[in-house]
C-alpha cells in the first residue's frame, strides 16, 4: 500500500507532512488559523510551515472562527486553496454560518462559476479530559449540509493521504481529526497503556505525495458475523472490542462520511446480516442515525437483527465522567452481543 520510502509518523506528523507536500506542489495553498503560524498550532500540526513557506503562506489568525472561514471564502473565490485550522471542533460554531450558508452552497448558487476548494481542519473527540468544550464530535452538524464533504481519518497513513486528497478536491472538505489518537491508537481501556503508532503498520507513512481517495471506506478487519461501521477513534475501540470478545466481525472504517461509500457497506451487511454503528457523538440525530436508517432501508431483507448504535450519551461531555461518557469496550461488547443475539 505504499509509494516510495516510508517513515514512521504519528498522526500529527502525517498531517504536518500532508501540508508540506501540498504547499510545495501548489503555491496557491495557504494555511492559517489560531496559533498556526510561528508556533505551528497548539497540536503542532502546522509546525515548521511558516519557516519554510514564509509568513504569507502560513500565518496566525485572529480568534474569530467566523472571520477565518469568511476570509477563506474570499481567498477561494480569488483562486487560492485555503487550508484552515479551527483549534478545536468545539469552537467551529462561530464559523458555522459561513460554512453552511456560504462555503457549502457557493458552487451551487453560482452554477459552478465560483467554487470553494478549501479544507477546514479541526481536532475533535474526547478521551483527553478536555471537558465540555474540548471533546465534542460535531460531524453530524456537517453531514446534514449539502455541498460539503466530511472526512475523518483513523490512522497516520490515511490522515496524510486523505488530507492531500481533500486539499486537491474541488469541493470544500471538513476534516475532523481524532485528537485522542494523534499520538497513538487507543483501544478504549483507559486503565492500560496505549500502543504507540510506531508499533502499527498504518504509521508507516510514505514520504511525498500520495492520496487516499475520498468517498472510499476501508475494511480494516474482514469478518462474517456482523458488520461494524465506525470512523475516527471509534475504529480502534471497535476493532479491539471485536477481537477481545472473539467475534468475527467485519469492521469498516468509513473514512469519508459524505459522500458515503454505500457499496462497501451494503455488500458487507448483506453478507453478515447484522450491523452495529459506532459514533462518539451524542446519540440523538448523530451520524449513526443516518447509517442505521440507510442500512435498514437498503438491507432490510438481509437483516437478522435491528441495527444497533453505540454512541456517546445525550449529555454535554462531563469532565470527571470522561470514562462513563466515552463509548468504550463495555458499551461495544454489550452492543455486539445484542446484535448477535
Amino acid at each position, binding site marked *: 500500500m505504499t509509494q516510495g520510502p516510508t517513515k514512521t509518523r504519528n498522526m500529527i506528523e502525517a498531517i504536518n507532512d500532508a501540508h508540506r507536500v501540498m504547499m510545495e506542489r501548489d503555491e496557491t495553498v*495557504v494555511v492559517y488559523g489560531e496559533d498556526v503560524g510561528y508556533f505551528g498550532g497548539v497540536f503542532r500540526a502546522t509546525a515548521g510551515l511558516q519557516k519554510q513557506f514564509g509568513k*504569507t*503562506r502560513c500565518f496566525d*489568525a*485572529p480568534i*474569530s472562527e*467566523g*472571520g477565518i472561514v*469568511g*476570509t*477563506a*471564502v*474570499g*481567498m477561494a*473565490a*480569488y*483562486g*487560492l486553496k485555503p487550508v484552515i485550522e479551527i483549534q478545536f471542533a468545539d469552537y467551529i460554531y*462561530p464559523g458555522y*454560518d*459561513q460554512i453552511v*450558508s*456560504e462555503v457549502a452552497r*457557493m*458552487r*451551487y*448558487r*453560482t*452554477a*459552478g*462559476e*465560483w*467554487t470553494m476548494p478549501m479544507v477546514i481542519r479541526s481536532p475533535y473527540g474526547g478521551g483527553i479530559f478536555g471537558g465540555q468544550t474540548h471533546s465534542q464530535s460535531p460531524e453530524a452538524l456537517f453531514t446534514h449540509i*449539502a*455541498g460539503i*464533504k466530511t472526512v475523518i481519518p483513523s490512522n497516520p497513513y490515511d490522515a496524510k493521504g486523505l488530507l492531500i486528497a481533500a486539499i486537491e*478536491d*474541488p*469541493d470544500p472538505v471538513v476534516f475532523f481529526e481524532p485528537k485522542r489518537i494523534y499520538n497513538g491508537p487507543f483501544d478504549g481501556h483507559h486503565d492500560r497503556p496505549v500502543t504507540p503508532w510506531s508499533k502499527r503498520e498504518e504509521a508507516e507513512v510514505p514520504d511525498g505525495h500520495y492520496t487516499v481517495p475520498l*468517498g472510499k471506506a476501508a475494511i480494516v478487519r474482514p469478518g462474517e458475523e456482523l458488520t461494524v461501521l465506525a470512523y475516527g477513534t471509534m475504529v480502534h475501540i471497535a476493532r479491539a472490542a471485536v477481537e477481545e470478545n472473539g467475534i468475527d466481525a467485519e469492521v469498516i472504517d468509513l473514512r469519508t462520511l*459524505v*459522500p*458515503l461509500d*454505500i457499496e462497501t457497506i451494503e455488500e458487507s451487511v448483506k453478507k453478515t446480516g447484522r450491523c452495529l454503528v459506532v459514533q462518539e457523538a451524542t446519540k440523538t440525530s448523530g451520524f449513526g442515525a443516518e447509517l442505521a436508517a440507510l442500512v435498514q432501508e437498503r438491507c432490510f431483507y438481509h437483516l437478522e437483527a435491528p441495527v444497533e448504535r453505540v454512541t456517546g450519551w445525550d449529555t454535554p461531555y462531563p469532565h470527571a465522567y470522561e470514562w462513563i461518557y466515552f463509548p468504550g469496550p463495555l458499551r461495544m461488547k454489550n452492543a455486539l452481543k445484542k446484535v448477535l443475539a
Partner: protein
Amino acid sequence: MTETPTRANRPALALHVPEPAYRPGDAPDFSSISVPAAGEAPRPDIAAEAEATQPLTTHLVRVLDDEGRAVGPWDPRLDPDTLRKMLKDMKTVRVFDDRMYRAQRQGKTSFYMKCTGEEAIAVAAATAMDPEDMHFPTYRQQGLLVARGYPLKTMMCQIYSNAGDPLHGRQLPIMYSDKKHGFFSISGNLGTQYPQAVGWAMASAIRGDSRIAMGWIGDGATAEGDFHSALTFAAVYQAPVILAVVNNQWAISSFSGIAGAEQATFAARAVGYGIAGLRVDGNDALAVYAAVRWASERARSNKGPTLIEFFTYRAEGHSTSDDPTGYRPAGEAQKWPLGDPIARLKAHLVALGEWDDERDAALDKDLDAFVRAAQKEAEAMGTLPQQGFDNIPSMFEDVYADTPWHLAEQRDASMAEAREFLGHEPK
C-alpha cells in the same frame, strides 16, 4: 426573577429603546439634520494615518453644491463624458428597477428589490475603480453591474429564473453573480460578504497582484458579527480593501438607530479599528466617486483599508414584500434633504453646459425603449411561473463537482416524479 435587593440609595435603571423621529401620521421634518456645505470637508493625503480621518467620520464629504457646482478639495474633476456615462447608468438603474418591480407585481417573478435614491453609490463606485477589481455586493448594488456593462437581459433572465438565467433558476431574483464583471455572488445571508471581500483582498496581496476588493453592507447589517470579522482582519493584515456601508437609514422596518447610529456614525467605527473612515453624501455622485478613488489609491499603495459610509435614504420599500407606510410617514423620501442623486448629477452637467433638458428627455426615452427591449427578449425566454419543470437534472448538479450516488438516486427519483406529474417525459 432573582431576589431584588433593597438598594434604596441606588437610582432605578431604565432601558433606552431608540425611536425614529417620525412614525406614520407624523409630518416629517428633517430641518434638524445638519447638512454641511459642499466643499467644506478637507481631503487628507491617501497615506494619512487612520486616526487623521477621525473628523471625516462625523463630517460629510460633499462635492455638489445646491447650484450644481462641484466644489472643494474632493472634486474629482471628471470629464463630461464620464459624467454623462454615470448619469446614463444611474437612469438605467432606475428604469430597470421600475420595470422589474412592475414585473413582480404582474406575477412574473417572486420578488424584487429596488435601490431608488441610492443609484449614485454603486454607479460612481464602479466608475471610480478598475474593471478588474472585485466587488462583494449586497442586493442593492445593481448599479455596479449596469455601470460595468453587464447585459440587462441577463439580469432579467436571472430575475425570471428562466432558461437564460446563468444561475439555472437556483437563486432568488436579484441575487446576481458574475465573475467576468467582478461581481461576487450575492448572498441571502446578510453580512457574510464582508469578510469575504477582505479575504479576497488578502489573497490578492498574498499573490502580489494589484487588484483590490470592495465589500458592501447595509446600515442594518453592520450589526452582524461578520462586520467585525471584516474590520478586524482588514486592520490586522492591512488588506487592500474598501468597505462600504450604505446607510440608507432603514433596515426593513427598523431605522438605523437600532443598528447603533444614534450613538455614533458608521464611519466612526473604522477609526476604532485603526482603519481610515469617511462619511460621504451618498446622493452626490461626485463625492462618492472621489471617496472611492481616495480609498482605492490608499489600498493600491499598501496603505491599508478604508471604510466609507455612504449617507443616503431608502426612498422606497425594502422589497416587494414590504410596505413602508406601516412604519414611517409616507412623504419622508421627498423631504429628505440630500435630494435625488440623478437630479443632482443632471443639474451639475447642466451647470457645466454639458447637458440640457432636451437631451435629458431624449435619453429617458432611449433608456425606456432599451430596457423594454431587453425585457421583451428576456420574457421570450420565460418568466418564473413557467419554470421549474425543464432540465430537472440540472437541479442536482453543482452541489459537488461530481454527482455522488445519493444525489444521482435522488435525481432519478425526481425525474420519475416529474414524469408522473406532467404525464410526459420532462424536457
